[in-house]
């Protein structure tokens, strides 16, 4: 049976099609999920894509968090279903409290769009088993509210437990604490990051890198072995 990976579309999602494509290229079957539909259609994992859901009104991700589909995703994530939040999806995950902390406006107040160097710090999550710890990868980054923050105790906990999954290298593009680009929950099934792996999966598109494909092959491997 093919592994089914759901990709949620909220009003204002932009990268849902790219995420579906990345899922397909990795060898799984992408399943479109609609924000108003609580039914997850028997998916094995979920991607919350980038964009500006609900126009980023109130706070990025704040309104999406209360959508019907998120009720089911929060429930399943707590039971161990792999969930990846990319950019706006990461913001939805922090607003949902599936991941700790919060996202703030970039410290320089500019929208950023660049090829970003990252270090994979934790290659043990559901979305990173196809990387090596310490591996350096290039992934596009494009956002306005990317400055990850949390109180000192939470940061200490994340660092001590190896839950910082990705760190910005060379340049910190938004002022995030400890150069944090992505984190995971304690179980390792929920991962959120600001850069966009789904834009780095094909040699013919973008800058031609495929460093992002590993996210999607990782979860596939994880689910097949489960």
């Amino acid at each position: 049976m093919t592994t089914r990976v759901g990709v949620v579309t909220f009003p204002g999602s932009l990268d849902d099609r790219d995420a579906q494509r990345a899922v397909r290229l990795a060898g799984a079957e992408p399943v479109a999920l609609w924000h108003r539909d609580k039914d997850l259609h028997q998916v094995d994992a979920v991607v919350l894509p980038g964009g500006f859901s609900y126009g980023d009104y109130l706070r990025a991700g704040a309104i999406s968090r209360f959508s019907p589909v998120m009720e089911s995703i929060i429930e399943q994530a707590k039971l161990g279903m792999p969930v990846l939040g990319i950019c706006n999806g990461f913001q939805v995950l922090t607003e949902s409290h599936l991941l700790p902390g919060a996202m703030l406006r970039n410290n320089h107040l500019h929208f950023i769009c660049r090829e970003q160097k990252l270090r994979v710090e934790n290659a043990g999550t559901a979305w990173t088993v196809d990387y090596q710890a310490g591996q350096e990868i290039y992934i596009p980054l494009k956002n306005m509210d990317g400055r990850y923050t949390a109180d000192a105790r939470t940061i200490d906990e994340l660092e001590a437990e190896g839950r910082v999954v990705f760190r910005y290298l060379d340049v910190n593009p938004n002022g995030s604490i400890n150069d944090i680009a992505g984190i995971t929950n304690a179980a390792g099934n929920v991962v959120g990051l600001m850069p966009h792996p789904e834009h780095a999966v094909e040699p013919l598109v973008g800058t031609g890198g495929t460093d992002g494909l590993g996210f999607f092959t990782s979860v596939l491997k994880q689910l097949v072995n489960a």
Partner: protein
Amino acid sequence: MARVVVDVMLKPEILDPQGQAVQRALPRLGFTGIADVRQGKRFELELEGPVDDAALARIREAAETFLANTVIEDFTVHIEEEGK
């Protein structure tokens, strides 16, 4: 109709680059003597019924779970007097 106001501000320890940008623009426009600016949000909630303890408790709950993200923001709730 009664109005309840929820003010939301970034916590003091959180960097507010928007407030800083406003502060830097002020002297250029001739508004001097302002040491610091922090920018927040104000929500005006018009209630259908009276502002009683139960209504205020629900509004506080809404502020805590939705209007503010208490990881990064503080909020205050107050009733706006008639005629203001």
